[in-house]
């Protein structure tokens, strides 16, 4: 057990050191930020999908709630943006609490209801009648507190936090009870797992990570629109990255997000339809031939993936 914690710890330290040092050698800070963002989000999806099997198709709702929660706190209260990022995370947790009843739905029904919830949240935030609070469709302008470096290191801290949470779940009794829920809810509850409590905690942790990511994104970007932070693409990218790497492990989603986001950056930004075509085929191929992700290839060869 201790050895597994050490392995997880070395993965976390490796990632942290790489992102601490990379800005000295590689000047495209925005690429590095977005890469960390998707690593963090992929681990966030991993918490809920990898360990409990609930597919959060509306995951972007938490991201947007975090970005807006944090931006509204900055605009109205003028407190340190760093505190506001945490408040953004809390805003996402609050959204998650409202959505807890959705966890009663199973499988694809949960996924669609969650998608609908994120769209509803988007339409509320972007509604012109909400202009006094959220600026409606006109977007948020945080250029008065703009500080790219601070935003970058905040995101790094968020990423480390997300990895620590996943490492804990992966190696603890709590994680084991979540996996039991994933296999069979009724049997899990008979074996003494408090199903409702365990899955609600995982759900809120997952929301918290997405909210922190959203807050950091808002601070780093400074100007954003509801259509950016509630874009379905965020959910989709995150889920595909996590699936590709292999959920239920710490390293899988990191690997998936690293490979695919880098690829997106090379071919996707100039001609998004090529990337869309590619990842459409990738999803189909994954489901048919590799439903447990890249990590499962190693696991089949009896290699332990942290």
């Amino acid at each position, binding site marked *: 057990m201790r050895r597994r914690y050490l392995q997880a710890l070395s993965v976390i330290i490796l990632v942290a050191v790489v992102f601490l040092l990379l800005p000295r050698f590689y000047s495209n800070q925005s690429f590095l930020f977005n890469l960390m963002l998707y690593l963090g989000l992929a681990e966030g999806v991993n918490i809920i999908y990898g360990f409990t*099997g609930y*597919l959060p198709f509306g995951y972007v709702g938490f991201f947007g709630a975090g970005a807006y929660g944090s931006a509204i706190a900055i605009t109205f209260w003028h407190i340190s943006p760093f505190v506001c990022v945490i408040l953004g995370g809390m805003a996402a947790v609050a959204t998650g609490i409202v959505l807890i*009843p*959705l966890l*009663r*739905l*199973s*499988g*694809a*029904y949960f*996924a*669609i*209801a969650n*998608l*609908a*919830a994120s*769209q*509803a949240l988007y*339409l*509320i935030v972007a*509604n*012109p*009648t909400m202009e006094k609070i959220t600026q409606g469709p006109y977007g948020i302008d945080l250029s008065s507190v703009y500080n790219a470096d601070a935003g970058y290191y905040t995101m790094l801290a968020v990423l480390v936090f997300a990895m620590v949470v996943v490492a804990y779940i992966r190696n603890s009794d709590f994680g084991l009870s979540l996996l039991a829920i994933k296999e069979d*809810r009724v049997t899990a509850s008979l074996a003494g797992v408090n199903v409702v409590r365990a899955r609600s905690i995982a759900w809120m942790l997952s929301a918290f990570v997405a909210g922190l990511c959203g807050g950091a994104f808002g601070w780093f970007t400074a100007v954003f629109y509801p259509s950016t932070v509630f874009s*379905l693409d965020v959910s*989709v990218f995150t889920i595909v990255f996590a*699936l590709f790497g292999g959920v239920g492990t710490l390293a899988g989603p990191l690997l998936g997000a690293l490979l695919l986001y880098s690829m997106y950056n090379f071919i996707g930004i100039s001609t998004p*339809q*090529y990337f*869309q*075509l590619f*990842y*459409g*085929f*990738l*999803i*189909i191929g*994954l*489901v*048919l031939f590799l*439903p447990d992700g890249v990590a499962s290839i190693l696991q089949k060869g009896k290699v332990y993936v942290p």
Partner: protein
Amino acid sequence: MNLFVYTIIAGIMYGIFFGLVGMGLNIIFGVLKMINLAHGDFIMLGSFLAYWLYGFLGINPLVAVPIVAAVFFLLGLPLYYAFVPRLIKSKDPEMLSFILFFGLSQVMEALVVFFFGNNQRSIPSTAFGSAGFTIFGQRFPIAWLITCLVALGAFGFVYWYLQHTRMGRATRAVMANRDEALVSGIDVERISALVFCMGLVLASIAGIFSFFVIGASYPSMGAELTTVSFAIIVLGSLGDPLGTILGGLIYGVAVMFMQSYFSSWAEILPYVLLIAVMLFRPEGLVGKAARSA
């Protein structure tokens, strides 16, 4: 009062069309117990095919119906045999099919962008002439009437197929219980393939007429249509094709009332409706449960 009458009648017509929008998704769900997450994209693809037939070959949308239907039927067969049998044998068909069809929707969207670009496309509503028609003193474009008649025709066809043909009876047996149908000697695989293709055909027909009811088509319109369709079939009841019509009508009238009286919040309606029905009456208005505790 005038607005009220208009809202009701427009809502019913709008709802009949949306019954057609949801129908394809629901019959596929009924037989395969899979959610075709690319459903909205099949509607989108159907509308682009109709646009192409009208714009480049001058084929009237009404004449395009059998052509589009045949194309989608033939498209459905390879898609079915490439994916569905493998999915049914996999360890978690419900979830994996959901993800797979999502991938398919992305491929379709990207391909349409390749061929048609990212612009909005439309067939003018004057394709059926500029005449109007009047019900209870309210005037509507003739295209709405034609759309409703086509949708009613499609419902009639589904009803006739399910209730009055041998294959239809077998289909209802597969819907009720796949394993028992297999044991009693029904060729489940063939029925499933047929119904899958029918689902795509119904989606594509909805696509042809979407221009006159919803407006211009664009490649990324699929996701929203899928969500709306899902709201409608959950409302009607999952797996019950004729319940879809009821779901569509409720949705149509509700949308029209929102647009007439609270227009700034009208867009949010399908999402709220979907969540509310799933949480409080998951079995739909006329059907069986689809939720687990």
